[in-house]
């Protein structure tokens, strides 16, 4: 028996996957656990391995196509069978025809001959196993029979009577007919449900509200959507539609942070961590989430879901788009721990080695749009979270400071912090209170 190889479920909420690359081709030998193809889901790329020693007989889903979890994507043959059947799928396909031609009286190819289910199925009531079998064996169209059983059900006797009458009617003309039918190649069986699903067009996400297709200009090129692009589009629209976004902004003086980072960079390096600014923002956010826990929450119609865990997502730009790996239980980590976690996640995001659980479970998100020069932005909330912190570029600016009661103009590394929040559960004053904690933690930095 050939093995149907199905699209695996690659994460808790993952319902579909895109075949990004076949590492094996039809006819290739595969070892148990040997990577066979690459699959892309919303945010994760994974290699999928062979479940058997054997042969990849047939690829059902070409590269670039997206199918639901559980859809058959390939047909495999385990080792011994591959040897017995030969590895060429074409041979396989021809075999049944030859066999059924030989199989005369002794071995009626019952399954192969089974006619497709008549369309009027429902109207005929329950089709018992005996009736289905008899109809298949004698090529009876059940819609031609009036049932005499309970509620008009077609009984076995009804079918037998029909066959008898039919054979009486046909007798002189076609005595040889049954033999001819037996030799005929099979009626093509209806494909199994899953196959049909996979063949159907990939469902369009409710990303863009229906707009008129743009007029095509000369030289226009349609670039197919990647799974990631599709997911981003869907999420952005959904978030904007779900949460009333409001943004509040504060400015922080990062003198102490910059100094601390300069002083400790080498020490962190020795401990295997590259000290960037991001862990400081994560650290400050943890304090703020602890002091103003309403920000670490989700609005639901049943009530406000307060999260105990503090899992902070850190947006990472990659060439294909954007991913938000999550530092789980960020409140349990020191600055060194956070550095390591952030380094690791960012590295793996860029090399596309994130696991599904790396991108799940976030309760708050930080996006450091300043790395690309932006000084100020209003990001979109990462649903179902309540707020997102935008960190602008750190710039030296002349600012007025007051020392010993004397105002002075000083040059300080300054940074705009924006908090975009869901106004359904967070009010402006609360948001400001939250952002003020972050500002305080950064400006009065001491680990």
């Amino acid at each position: 028996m050939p093995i149907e190889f199905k699209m695996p479920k690659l994460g808790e909420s993952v319902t579909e996957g895109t075949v990004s690359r076949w590492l094996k081709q039809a006819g290739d030998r595969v070892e148990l656990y040997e990577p066979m193809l690459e699959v892309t889901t919303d945010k994760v790329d994974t290699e999928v391995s062979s479940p058997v020693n054997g042969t990849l007989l047939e690829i059902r889903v070409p590269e670039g196509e997206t199918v639901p979890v559980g859809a058959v994507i390939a047909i495999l043959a385990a080792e011994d069978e591959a040897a017995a059947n030969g590895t060429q799928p074409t041979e396989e396909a021809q075999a049944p025809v030859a066999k059924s031609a030989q199989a005369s009286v002794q071995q009626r190819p019952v399954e192969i001959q089974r006619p497709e289910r008549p369309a009027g199925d429902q109207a005929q009531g329950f089709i018992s196993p005996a009736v289905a079998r008899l109809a298949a064996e004698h090529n009876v169209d059940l819609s031609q029979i009036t049932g005499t059983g309970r509620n008009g059900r077609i009984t076995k006797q009804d079918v037998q009577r029909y066959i008898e009458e039919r054979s009486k009617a046909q007798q002189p003309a076609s005595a040889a007919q049954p033999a001819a039918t037996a030799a005929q190649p099979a009626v093509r069986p209806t494909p199994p449900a899953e196959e049909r699903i996979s063949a159907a067009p990939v469902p369009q996400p409710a990303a863009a509200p229906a707009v008129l297709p743009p007029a095509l200009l000369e030289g226009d090129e349609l670039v197919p959507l990647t799974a990631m692009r599709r997911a981003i589009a869907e999420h952005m629209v959904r978030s904007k539609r779900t949460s009333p976004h409001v943004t509040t902004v504060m400015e922080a003086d990062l003198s102490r942070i910059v100094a601390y980072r300069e002083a400790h960079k080498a020490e962190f390096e020795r401990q295997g961590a590259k000290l960037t600014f991001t862990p400081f923002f994560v650290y400050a956010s943890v304090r703020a989430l602890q002091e103003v826990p309403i920000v670490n929450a989700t609005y639901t119609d049943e009530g406000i879901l307060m999260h105990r865990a503090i899992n902070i997502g850190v947006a990472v730009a990659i060439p294909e788009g954007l991913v938000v790996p999550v530092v789980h239980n960020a409140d349990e980590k020191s600055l060194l721990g956070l550095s390591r976690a952030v380094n690791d996640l960012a590295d793996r995001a860029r090399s596309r080695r994130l696991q599904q659980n790396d991108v799940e479970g976030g309760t708050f998100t930080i996006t450091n749009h300043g790395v690309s020069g932006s000084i100020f932005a209003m990001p979109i909330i990462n649903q179902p979270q309540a707020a997102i912190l935008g960190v602008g570029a750190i710039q030296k600016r002349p600012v007025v400071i007051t020392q010993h009661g004397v105002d002075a103009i000083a040059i300080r590394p300054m940074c705009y912090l924006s908090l975009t929040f869901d106004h359904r559960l967070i009010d402006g004053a609360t948001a400001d209170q939250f952002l003020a904690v972050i500002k305080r933690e950064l400006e009065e930095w001491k680990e």
Partner: protein
Amino acid sequence: MPEMNLLEAIRAGIDEMMAADERVYIIGEDVGKRGGVFRVTEGLVDKYGEMRVIDSPLAESIIVGSSIGAAMYGMRPIAEIQFADFIFPAFNQIVSEAARIRYRSNGAWDVPMVIRAPFGGGIHGALYHSQSVEAFFAHVPGLKVVVPSTPYDAKGLIKASIEDPDPVLFFEHKKLYRLIKGQVPEEDYRVPIGVADVKREGSDMTVLSYGLTLHQSLEAAEQLSAEGVEVEVVDLRTLRPLDKETILNSVRKTGKVLIAYEDNRFLGYGAELAAIISEEVFEHLDGPIMRVAGADVPAMPFSPPLEEAFMPSTEKIAAAMRELAGY
């Protein structure tokens, strides 16, 4: 060919076996001078003496336990349990010992023993004289369970059972003892264990039965025949080992199955039949597998109307046949 009733046929079979083989002996309560409460062994003590027709104490564990030992030693005991209801004190000997000796001794020992027991209701026997116990024993590998329903089968089966190298439970429906008469050949013959018998051929449904309900099914089949429905009635004759081929062939032919038995419906013998049929010939079924069986109440009631309510009957079976035919 003489006509005999069921108990006379059983007696004739035992008599012939005792005459032919002196290892065969009978042990049970009142089986000697009294000839058994139903007179199955009547006259045998005069013919073969008290050493071969032994009146036992009122202790079923002794009747069976001693028979196991004697059988292992080379004798051919026929242990009679006065009513199947009384078999439970010997349950341990039968199930834990007799059934397992061959397995336990790796084939070195066997237990060629017959345990006869009248079972079933419909004779106002109430709680302690009416039970059907076949399902308890048919469940156990190592035992054979035989239920004859006609005089011919009874004689042929008792002889085959006495010769069988394994413990055989031989259940006789007590209401059939004198009710059913039939021609029984005088010449030596056997009805093999493990072979069912199609008692009536038909094309529209299969009824599987044994014991009193077999005869009720045959009567009901006659009624249905007058209404244009031809019912095939299969007499199982042996419950273990079961003749699956005869049963499954019949179901393949008719596509509908009714199982009639007197034991309590729940987990009665019909449950296993239904399971085997749906596992092995599901594609041939043209209707639900139905059962007519005894009620799931703790015991056979003494009150005649309640006893009637408990017992399957020709009418109840015919009604079920009509329902199934109309499906």
